[in-house]
C-alpha cells in the first residue's frame, strides 16, 4: 500500500447541444465537410464582432442548476490571449472573472457512502478549431471554432482514480439527461483534464501539480491517474524533484507522456471583452430553465424501485435514456412495472439492437406497450410466445390482441381443452402419478413440463397447474 495521499482535481469541457454556435449563427455540427460550417465571425475576419446565443445561457443555467451551483446574475466575458493556429482570433472569449456558476457539487457513491465532489466554478467559453498534423503541415478545419463549451472545474477534493471516474460518470449522466450535451468523449463533445499531486500527509502542503490533458475516455482517466500517481511516487521515493508540467495520456503506450514543463505560468493577458457588454440573468430566465429540467437519474431509480422494479433493473434502465424516458412517459399508468421493465430491457432492447433502430421509429406506441404489458400480466401471452410475434408487435399497427389471435399463440384458457390435455398426460405417466401420491413434489413439475411440451407452451400455466392438481387429487 502506498505511503502517499493523492489530491486530484478534474476539469471537464463539454460542448453544448445548441443549434448554432455561441458567437455566430453558424451551425453547431459534427462530422460535416471541412470548413462548411463557418462564417466570417468564426474565422475571426477583420471587422467582425461576436453576438450571443440565448440557448447557451439556458443550457449553462440548466447545468449550473443540476450541478447545485450558485448562479451569477451579472457577468461579462474576458479575452484569453494566446497565439495558436486553432485559435482564429488568437484570443479565446471565455469567462475568467465572472463564471456563470460557482460553489456547486455532485454526489457520488463510493463504497456505499455518499461523497460530495465540490465544484469550484463552471464558465462559458468558445471551442477552438480542429487541427490535424500531417507531416510538415497542419490542416485546419474551422467547423468546431465557436462551438459553445462549458468548463466545469472541481476543487482538489478527489482522492482516488475511482472517485474521479465515478464523478465523470455522474456528470455525464446529469448533462446527458438534461440535454445539455451529447457527452460523447469519442467525438470530443466531452473532454477531461486531471490535475494530480501527491503528499505524505494531510498536514503537508500540496505536492507539485501535474496536469494530464485531453484524456479520451472515462476509463483512461482512471488509468492515467493511477499511472501518474505511481510515477510521482517513484520519483519522490528516489528523491527526485519534478517541475509543474503538462502531460497527455498516450493510448498506445498506456501511459502519460510529457507535453511541456511550465516555466513561469502562461501569460494569457486576460482582460474584459470590450465587444460584449454586461449580461444580466433574470429570475424569469432561471425559472423558465428550471421547468425544462427532466426527472434526474437518481430520482428515476428511486421511483422505479417504488413501482416494483428490482434495483438492478432500475439501474440498468437509466443506463439507456431512451428506454428510461419511454418508461417515464407511462409512469402514471397502473400496470405491472416489473414486467414492463423486463420487456424493455429484454426482448425490446434486443429487437432495437438487432434492427439498429430506436423506439419512436417502431410502431410500439405507449398505448400498445401498455396493452402488451397487461396481456402478459394476465398470462394471455407468455414471454416465450412473445418472441414469435415480436416483429409484428414492433412493426405493425394492429392491436396486440389481434396479433396474438391471428398468430395462434394465444394461451389455451379453455377449461375443457386443458382438462383433456391434463388427462392425457396423467394417463401417459403413471409412474409420476404414483410419485406424486407418495409425496414427491417434483412429480408435479415434471407433469407440468410435459403439459407445456404437449401444448407447445400455449396453455395458461396457472390454469393448467390448478387443473392438474385437481385431477391428481380426484
Amino acid at each position, binding site marked *: 500500500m502506498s505511503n502517499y495521499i493523492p489530491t486530484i482535481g478534474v476539469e471537464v469541457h463539454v460542448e453544448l447541444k445548441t443549434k448554432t454556435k455561441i458567437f455566430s*449563427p453558424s451551425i453547431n455540427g459534427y462530422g460535416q465537410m471541412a470548413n462548411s*460550417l463557418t462564417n466570417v465571425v468564426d474565422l475571426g475576419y477583420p471587422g467582425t464582432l461576436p*453576438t450571443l446565443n440565448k*440557448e447557451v445561457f439556458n443550457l449553462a443555467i440548466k447545468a449550473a442548476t443540476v450541478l447545485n451551483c450558485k448562479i451569477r446574475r451579472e457577468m461579462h466575458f474576458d479575452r484569453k490571449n494566446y497565439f495558436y493556429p486553432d485559435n482564429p482570433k488568437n484570443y*479565446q472569449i471565455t469567462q475568467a472573472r465572472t463564471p456563470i456558476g460557482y460553489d456547486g457539487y455532485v454526489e457520488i457513491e463510493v463504497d456505499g457512502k455518499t461523497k460530495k465532489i465540490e465544484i469550484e466554478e463552471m464558465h462559458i467559453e468558445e471551442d*477552438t478549431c480542429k487541427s490535424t*498534423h500531417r507531416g510538415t503541415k497542419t*490542416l*485546419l478545419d474551422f467547423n468546431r471554432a465557436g462551438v459553445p463549451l462549458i468548463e466545469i472545474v472541481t476543487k482538489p477534493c478527489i482522492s482516488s482514480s475511482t472517485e474521479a471516474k465515478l464523478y465523470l460518470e455522474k456528470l455525464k449522466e446529469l448533462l446527458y439527461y438534461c440535454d445539455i450535451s451529447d457527452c460523447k468523449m469519442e467525438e470530443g463533445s466531452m473532454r477531461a483534464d486531471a490535475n494530480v499531486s501527491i503528499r505524505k500527509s494531510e498536514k503537508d502542503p500540496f505536492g507539485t501539480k501535474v496536469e494530464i490533458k485531453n484524456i479520451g475516455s472515462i476509463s483512461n482517466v482512471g488509468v492515467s491517474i493511477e499511472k501518474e500517481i505511481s510515477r510521482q511516487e517513484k520519483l519522490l521515493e528516489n528523491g527526485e524533484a519534478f517541475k509543474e508540467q503538462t502531460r497527455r495520456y498516450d493510448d498506445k503506450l498506456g501511459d502519460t507522456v510529457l507535453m511541456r514543463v511550465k516555466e513561469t505560468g502562461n501569460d494569457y493577458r486576460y482582460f474584459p471583452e470590450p465587444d460584449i457588454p454586461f449580461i444580466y440573468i433574470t429570475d424569469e430566465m432561471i425559472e423558465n430553465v428550471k421547468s425544462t429540467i427532466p426527472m434526474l437519474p437518481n430520482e428515476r431509480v428511486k421511483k422505479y424501485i417504488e413501482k416494483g422494479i428490482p434495483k438492478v433493473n432500475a439501474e440498468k434502465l437509466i443506463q439507456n435514456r431512451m428506454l428510461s424516458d419511454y418508461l417515464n412517459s407511462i409512469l402514471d399508468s397502473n400496470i405491472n412495472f416489473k414486467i414492463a421493465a423486463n420487456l424493455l430491457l429484454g426482448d425490446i432492447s434486443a429487437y432495437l439492437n438487432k434492427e439498429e433502430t430506436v423506439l419512436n421509429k417502431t410502431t410500439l406506441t405507449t398505448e400498445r406497450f401498455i396493452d402488451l404489458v397487461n396481456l402478459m400480466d394476465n398470462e394471455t401471452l407468455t414471454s416465450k410466445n412473445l418472441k414469435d410475434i415480436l416483429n409484428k408487435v414492433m412493426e405493425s399497427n394492429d392491436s396486440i390482441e389481434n396479433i396474438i389471435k391471428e398468430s395462434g399463440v394465444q394461451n389455451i384458457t379453455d377449461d375443457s381443452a386443458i382438462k383433456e390435455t391434463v388427462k392425457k398426460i396423467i394417463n401417459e405417466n403413471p409412474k409420476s402419478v404414483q410419485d406424486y401420491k407418495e409425496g414427491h413434489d417434483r412429480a408435479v413439475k415434471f407433469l407440468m413440463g410435459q403439459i407445456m411440451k404437449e401444448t407447445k407452451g400455449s396453455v395458461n400455466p396457472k390454469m393448467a397447474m390448478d387443473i392438474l392438481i385437481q385431477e391428481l387429487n380426484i
Partner: protein
Amino acid sequence: MNDKLSREEVLHVAELAKIKVTEEEIEKFQVELKKILNDVEKINDVKGYDDDILIAPWSRKTTLREDKEEEMLQPKVVIETAPRHSGNYIEVPVVISEGVSA
C-alpha cells in the same frame, strides 16, 4: 525613472506580441517603448477611483440572439481567402509545440 528598457524586456514583449525584432530595432525599442511606458506611469497619480469598470459606454446591457442558423460560407470561399490551403483545409506549417487547447 529609467530611460531604457532592458534587452530582455524588449524581447519579452516582442515574444508576447509575436513580432520579430532585429538587433538595431531592439535598441530603438528599448528607448521608444520605455518613453511610452514612463508616460503611462502617470496613472499612479490618479486617486479616488473604485472597483466599477466601464466596458462599453452607453450600451450596458447585452441582448441575446435566438438559436437560429443563418447562411454560412462555402468552403471554397473560406480557403481561397487564405494564403495557404490544401483540399478543403486551411494550411499552416507544422506546429512544433503542443499548444494549449480550450
